[in-house]
């Protein structure tokens, strides 16, 4: 059974029953799931979690889903890899990479969609929907297929066909909207009110967001029930950043680990950095921007959780940083060449953010640090095309090979 008790508005404190809800009925602020922590404190132990499956569902007590409803694609419990090669290059003592490229649809979105789709099933929905072309759509379509639910994915009309293969393969209904991304999102908001469909990041958003806490839970468990001292997280809406920190602090509140301060660094692409810009300006007012960056999966111009991300930075002694598109691409290559992990552009933002944070003295190189890689590189190969080593051309004989190999200076 789920220990979720209600929805609470983060702005005005208005409480609602657990229902598919876009926003607070009173002030339109964001709603958040609350739990019966009194019961959880006595129930959840390290042993209980460790006895669970090697997926996010080992933390089911802390998620707003009943066990009978889960849609299980085997999401989560991805590797936490000690990145000694990269650490050496950067002069760091202890660096870890949380590798969420290894989720079923190759991004961390599987975590949030797993929770949203499971709760949607519990509410009796038969259709999952979203406005997205990338990671979110891929995951929604895959989870719907697994759950035997219908999936409806909304895209702008001028999107390249290749960009939707990662979703189309699961056979969702794809709706091509004659408009921009703004128009697509507005249409979906209206349909969420008119249709009994579970729009994973609209009327299911409070539940969807809870899935991100599992990244915090896993990192703590995988470090041997210890919080890292520093985290670097890419930011789009800011929700992931806030929820990872919340996941870590919840485990301390439940007595599973000692309480400690975890410095949270949020990284954004310079071409879409409303949160980091507000941080640098010393203000909590987030000014929306028009995204212009190669990091498309982070291209949210008006981040819904921006204010809360800024609060988390302040409370943890953290910061918001940015990276140029060039730095992002270089960082993708650096991570691949040093640790064998091929990240999408959001992962490049994380690693570039890590480098820039070290340069700016925002991170202590001697403290344990986790960098979160949220999606796999094959999803954004266009970002690195033309920037990699070309093949060495040889004739089909040893002499030609030896000459060409020596000329290329590769030994």
């Amino acid at each position: 059974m789920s220990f979720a008790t209600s929805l609470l508005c983060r702005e005005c404190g208005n409480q609602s029953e657990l229902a598919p809800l876009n926003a607070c009925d009173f002030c339109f602020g964001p709603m958040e799931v609350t739990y019966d922590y009194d019961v959880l404190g006595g129930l959840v132990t390290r042993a209980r979690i460790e006895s669970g499956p090697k997926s996010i569902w080992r933390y089911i007590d802390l998620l707003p889903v009943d066990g009978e409803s889960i849609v299980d694609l085997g999401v989560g419990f991805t590797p936490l890899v000690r990145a000694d090669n990269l650490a050496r290059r950067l002069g760091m003592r202890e660096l870890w990479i949380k590798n969420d490229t290894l989720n079923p649809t190759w991004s961390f979105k599987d975590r949030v969609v797993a929770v949203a789709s499971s709760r949607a099933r519990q509410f009796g929905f038969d259709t999952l929907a979203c406005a997205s072309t990338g990671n979110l759509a891929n995951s929604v379509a895959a989870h719907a297929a697994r759950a035997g639910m219908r999936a409806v994915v909304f895209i702008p009309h001028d999107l390249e066909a290749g960009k939707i293969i990662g979703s189309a393969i699961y056979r969702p209904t794809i709706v091509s909207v004659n408009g921009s991304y703004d128009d697509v999102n507005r249409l979906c908001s209206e349909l969420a009110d008119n249709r009994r469909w579970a729009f994973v990041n609209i009327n299911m958003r409070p539940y969807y967001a809870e899935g991100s806490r599992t990244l915090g839970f896993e990192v703590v468990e995988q470090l041997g029930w210890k919080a890292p001292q520093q985290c670097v997280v890419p930011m789009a809406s800011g929700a992931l950043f806030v929820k990872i920190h919340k996941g870590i602090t919840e485990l301390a509140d439940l007595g599973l680990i000692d309480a400690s301060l975890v410095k949270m660094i949020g990284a954004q692409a310079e071409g879409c950095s409303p949160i980091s810009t507000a941080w640098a300006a010393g203000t909590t007012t987030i000014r929306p921007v028009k995204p212009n960056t190669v990091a498309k999966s982070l291209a949210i111009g008006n981040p819904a959780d921006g204010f809360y991300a800024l609060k988390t930075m302040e409370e943890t002694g953290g910061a918001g940083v940015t990276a140029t598109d060039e730095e992002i691409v270089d960082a993708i290559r650096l991570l691949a060449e040093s640790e064998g992990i091929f990240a999408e552009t959001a992962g490049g933002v994380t690693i570039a953010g890590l480098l820039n944070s070290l340069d700016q003295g925002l991170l202590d190189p001697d403290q344990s640090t986790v960098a979160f890689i949220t999606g796999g590189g094959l999803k954004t190969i266009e970002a690195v095309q033309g920037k990699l080593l070309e093949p060495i051309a040889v004739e089909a004989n040893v002499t030609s090979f030896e000459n060409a190999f020596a000329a290329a200076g590769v030994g």
Partner: protein
Amino acid sequence: MVMITKRVRLTFEGEAVKEPVIYKMGHEFQVVTNIRMADVEHGFGWVMLEVDGEADEVERCLSWVEGLGVRIDPVAGDVVEG
């Protein structure tokens, strides 16, 4: 005639902050507006607004608002390309 209620976040920057936009919405269009949350500071402001009316009229009204350079986002959801 379909009556709808739209919940939107309006963001004002620069000169748009000085314009009595919400007042004009109610006077020049057949819509009812209700402010749920707002913040205005020098040169920047946002309003969480409920807009009630006949569907086409609400759309006409919001198109007019956008034409003034005011950004309109739905209350829930994120605009994301990737």
